[in-house]
């Protein structure tokens, strides 16, 4: 019986059907191929070859959007209770849209600072994570400039 969905006559190579269009460039630019570590020898291959994986890469682990990511150095203690200490480095991803509850870098009065972003009703609060520091409540008409979203802290122990 004739099958209307099959455009290829039977016997042709099915592998040739078109695949979905794909971006020529995108987030796939860097690809790692695992290397086989043992030399090819006449004897038995290394039993470890099947288990070879790529090495751990901190960049891919810590950074989601390479081009939009910046590292800044913290000075001060107002975010102590979420584990951001004086002298730490923070990873900031500007490609992430800031939303309620995120820890952000904000420009306040021309200075960069780190706070937790909170939406309370109609207004926006910037919270410190240390009871010794006050909450900043944005009044109507005051412009808030969020510089980026903090994704990680690099803290040496």
């Amino acid at each position, binding site marked *: 019986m004739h099958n209307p969905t099959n455009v290829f006559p039977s016997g042709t190579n099915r592998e040739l059907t078109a695949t979905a269009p794909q971006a020529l*460039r995108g987030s796939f630019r860097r690809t790692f191929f695992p290397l086989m570590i043992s030399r090819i020898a006449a004897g038995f291959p290394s039993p470890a070859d099947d288990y070879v994986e790529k090495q751990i890469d901190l960049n891919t682990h810590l950074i989601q959007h390479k081009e939009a990511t910046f590292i*800044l150095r913290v*000075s001060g203690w107002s975010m102590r209770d979420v584990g951001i200490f004086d002298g730490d480095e923070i990873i900031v991803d*500007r490609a992430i849209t800031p939303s309620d509850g995120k820890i952000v870098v904000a420009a306040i009065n021309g200075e960069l600072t780190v706070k937790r972003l909170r939406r309370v009703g109609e207004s926006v609060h910037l919270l410190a994570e240390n009871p010794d520091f006050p909450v900043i409540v944005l009044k109507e008409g005051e412009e808030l400039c969020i510089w980026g979203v903090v994704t990680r802290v690099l803290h040496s122990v």
Partner: protein
Amino acid sequence: MPIVLIDANNFYVSCERVFRPDLEGKPVVVLSNNDGCVVARSAEVKALGIAMGVPWFQIKKLAQKEGIIALSSNYTLYADMSQRMMTILSDFSPIQEVYSIDECFLDLQGFAPEQCRQIGQTARQRIRQWLGLPVGVGIAPTKTLAKLANHLAKKQPKYAGVCVWEEIPEQKQAKILQQLPVTEVWGIGRQWGKRLQDIGILTVWDLQNADPRPMRQRFSILMERMIRELRGESCIAMEEVAPPKQEIQSSRSFGRPVKTIEELGEAISLYIVRATSKLRRQNSVAAALRVYIRTNPFQNHLPQYQAARTVVLSQASQDTRIFLHAGKLALTQMYREGFAYAKAGVHLLEISSAQSVQADLFGDMEAKKRANQLMATLDQINARFGRNVLQPGVAGLQETRSWEMKRGNKSPAYTTQWKELARVKVE
């Protein structure tokens, strides 16, 4: 085939402002090497009528009065931000031509004007959010028109940063072109501008309506192409890979007057080291070296002297040592005592691909091979441990190089050095 031209507004100043939000809305200039001239101006500074390229000392008084903030150039930062910007934009089209540090063309073949507008807006928004840089977007059927559209996108607030040439009604287009001086056309410099003026071509409109054939005879084929491009006929192709540079130079003004031949020699040697490493990076060889020295022409109460010498090599090379030798030869020939030298520079000339080098009849192939290995090792060590970690002794030691240029007010290398990361106050 719509072409998009995206470029950053006041790129250097904008890069500085990303890490210094306090500079937002204030008049800011970035100065060239050695804090000599203005190389970037914020909108506030442009509004004061300060021109591009003016020597800093000429506007120092005005700057003080107007509260202009002057920063030394931080090319490390600008290069990193540029690279990020170009990579982000490469996601919008497989065909990209990076035209300069802060602008690139994208080919949006097959997209309708309306779709192009959306792509342009997304690209603009993304650069703004991801990098904090403001950009303008011009979209048109040819590169030359895209440049003009980009100009409109920046100058006229109603386009909100994105101008699609084909969406402008024809009558309006004509009106715009009638108001733009012909020197706004990409590729028309002051010289051609003057010659065009002489034959009555004052505006872009005049040029668009000039007969391309006689214009080609009068000027050159480039002129014909420009006219055709202005008429919407694409004549200038996208260049995706930058062609290797035909001339490499390295020159700097000194931080203080230099008098002795020893110090001049140190400076010239350092420039040769830099230029030859650039030469090897693009896998080229050079067959001649030009060296020049000069005093400061702005200090005309002091005795003035300038000189240049060109040394032609017996065979094209990329070996730093050969050029150092040639540089020393040139300097001893032209050096005169009793002058306060302000600047020196070197040019590598007659550049060609290293692959196409002819063998020297009298050359020692073994020695050449060893030289190549030595240079490759030098480059590798410097790539791994930082620029100028290892270099020939004649270039002097960094610590004692007191003649090096002033960069009094340079911002930190925020994005490339752990020691210089931007600081956030968490108080």
